[in-house]
């Protein structure tokens, strides 16, 4: 066989430069999109300080949060340290600082607060009845009647008098006579008020019965801001202790060793190395030896498809008449051919001929070939079988 003699092909018509250009053209779109996404992501993430929605947290911007107070304090030069664990609070509370215990909602154990008494720091207990009774010996009660009107100081505490007024709900009951009780409500007893300051064994303990004055939503009301800022800004350092429900109060200060502490440290690095191996294997297996070769596929049209469709159509429309007529006509034409009759033989002649060939009675044959159409599935099937029988009889005659 002859063969064509084409000229040899050397190279694919590209140079290193054209390939680099081509690659750059191909990838510059995705690279541009990716870098744009990165820049937008960074811009969105960087200047935004972390916020939360935990009530009374100094980073919470919710109505119940206290970010406003924390920010004002920081602007005034007070360093705010936010802690959730007792151990962290103890570590952070340096001598000469203020420790705020914000709320007792998550305090389940005395160990979560009893260390506060040993600290060389001023305490501020806000909305914390159990710690207040343990640490300062004042009981708390809740009343929601006094929220409407601002309370008058009614005492000689400098912070209270400077604030002038306060809008708060809770009350503390001072059990000892040396306690200064401020902001008594209209119907309150002499030892009942919203704010009290007491010095316990050399430690200044301020108790605010209600957390509302700290919250972003209520800070601006009445003299709330003045009282809170003075109360918390006594020293340059404020430890903002918001007890966590997950704090077991244990000395480790951790919830227990995690999975990362249990496995040897080599595992993480080994995982990284295995990742490198996987990446290399992916590049090894992922590169094709040339592109996939495509070719048009021929259409596939089964020949009997239209016939089957017609059968389904007969069935769906329950056309027993049509189906039976087709079966009868087919059988009749085959019988006629077998008996040597032309295709145009009239019915009586065909009936006679078939009856003669099979020995059946004329009316039976006539009923079979030209009788009424069947009316259900079983009758149609019976007719088909009967036609088969008579056809085979004619064939064997």
């Amino acid at each position, binding site marked *: *066989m*002859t*063969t*064509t003699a*084409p000229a*040899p*092909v*050397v*190279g*694919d*018509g*590209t140079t290193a430069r054209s390939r680099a250009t081509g690659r750059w053209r191909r990838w510059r779109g995705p690279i541009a999109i990716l870098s744009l996404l990165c820049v937008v992501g960074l811009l969105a993430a960087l200047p935004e300080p972390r916020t939360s929605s935990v009530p009374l947290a100094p980073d919470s911007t919710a109505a119940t949060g206290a970010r406003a107070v924390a920010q004002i304090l920081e602007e005034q030069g007070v360093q705010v340290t936010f802690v959730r664990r007792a151990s962290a609070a103890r570590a952070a509370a340096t001598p000469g600082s203020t420790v705020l215990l914000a709320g007792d909602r998550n305090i389940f154990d005395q160990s979560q607060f009893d260390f506060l008494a040993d600290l060389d720091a001023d305490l501020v207990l806000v909305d914390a009845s159990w710690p207040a009774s343990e640490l300062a010996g004042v009981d708390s009660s809740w009343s929601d009647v006094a929220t409407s009107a601002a309370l008058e100081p009614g005492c000689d505490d400098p912070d209270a008098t400077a604030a002038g007024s306060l809008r708060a709900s809770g009350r503390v009951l001072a059990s000892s006579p040396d306690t200064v009780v401020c902001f008594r409500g209209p119907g309150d007893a002499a030892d009942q008020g919203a704010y009290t300051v007491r010095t316990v064994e050399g430690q200044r303990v301020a108790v605010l019965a209600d957390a509302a004055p700290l919250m972003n939503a209520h800070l601006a009301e009445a003299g709330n801001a003045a009282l809170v800022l003075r109360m918390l800004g006594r020293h340059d350092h404020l430890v903002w202790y918001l007890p966590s429900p997950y704090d077991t109060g244990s000395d480790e200060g951790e919830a227990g060793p995690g999975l990362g502490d249990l496995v040897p*440290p*080599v595992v*993480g*690095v*080994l995982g990284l*190395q295995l990742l*490198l*191996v996987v*990446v*290399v*294997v992916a*590049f*090894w297996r992922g*590169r094709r*030896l*040339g*592109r996939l*070769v*495509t*070719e048009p596929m*021929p*259409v*596939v*049209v*089964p*020949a*009997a498809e*239209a*016939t*089957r469709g*017609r*059968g389904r159509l*007969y*069935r769906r429309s329950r056309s027993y008449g*049509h*189906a*039976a007529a*087709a*079966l009868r*006509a087919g059988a009749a*034409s085959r019988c006629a051919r077998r008996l040597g009759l032309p*295709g145009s033989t009239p019915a009586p002649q065909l009936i006679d001929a078939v009856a003669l060939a099979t020995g059946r009675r004329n009316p039976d044959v006539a009923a079979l070939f030209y009788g009424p159409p069947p009316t259900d*599935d*079983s009758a*149609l*099937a019976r007719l*088909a079988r009967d036609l*088969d029988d008579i056809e085979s009889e004619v064939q064997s005659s």
Partner: protein
Amino acid sequence: MALTWRAAVLAALGIPAVLVVPVPGTVLLWALVVLVVCAVDAALAASPREVAVVRRVPPSVRLGEPATSDLEVTNVASRRLRALVRDAWPPSSGAVAPRHEVDLPPGDGRRLRTVLVPTRRGDAHADRVTIRSIGPLGVAARQASLEVPARLRVLPEFASRRHLPSRLARLRELDGRAAVQVRGAGTEFDSLREYVIGDDVRSIDWRASARRSDVVVRTWRPERDRRVLVVLDTGRTSAVRVLDAPRIDASIEAALLLAALATRAGDRVELLAYDRRVRARVAGTGGPRLMPALADALATAHPELIETDWAGVVSQVRERLSQRALVVLLTALDPAVVEQGLLPVVDQLTSRHQVVLASVADPELHELSQQRGSAAEVFDAAAAERVGLERAAVAVRLRQRGVEVVEALPDDLAPRLADTYLALKAAGRL
């Protein structure tokens, strides 16, 4: 750029190092090592673009027969070329083991042979030749795909040629040229010869006998130099699959057998593949060049999913044929299609020519009409019966207009059409 299994092993070798110094820096360092080794190895590999490639393929091959694609690879670089070469062909070309490993010193060349066993008729266009040149360390490789155009024409199988010897023998019987002197019922006067006992007395030429003392008989031979036009319908009905092969394949087989037979019988054969325009045409070719020309033209005849324009067929035939000829229509005996398309115009053909319509029958139709298993099957049987009756009716109508109708299963169509041709020839109806 491509990597080999050695690169993966190199990366895995970092695991002991990590176990000794378990810091993330080790992983980073090892990744750098792998990267540098791969880059250096790829840079040291011979350029796959400095390889001269020549692809040689035979111009055509018969369907089902093996062909070879020869790739001559010459290293024109100054470095030694260790490479993996892929000779890419479309799937239907049936390339056996198209990947080859070569190791060529500078200036050396090698011939790589890929065996192709095509499974589909038509033109197979070779795809790119991909060369992956592996570096001296065997870690990384450079890769390039080169456009090396090549075309392999896959001709029709012509499996029906096995029927040719028996039909040629029948033709020779007609011709009176057989070793056994059986005179055929030809229609053209051939010669006079002496009467031998056994000759038909009706063929005695009395006038010639009177001039001589012997009794002389006329001998006849089949008519010669008739024209045969094969029209292959490439419309949508030719795409229909019968026994897992499109109808057009069986039609092509029949066309080839008929052409081979007719050209041996001394007739001139022309071919026209048509749907709404001419898809292939062979005319004015005779003798030994006819069959290759036909195979070449039919190789690329594929079904088009459009309705055949029969009026166009008729005008093509009238344009082509001035004298009486045998017109063979290779199409489908589809009742609806024939009634809409062929029947209105067939008179224009039959008035001047002998027309034969050859169609592939569907064995599934018979199977369908026999089944009685369920109500659905009986309905299908009724539908098949109705289709069969309609086909018979349309065949009768065509016969009434003088068209010879040949309907046969795919494998039988070619011999049946050849037999019809011989019968027509014997009857002198060409």
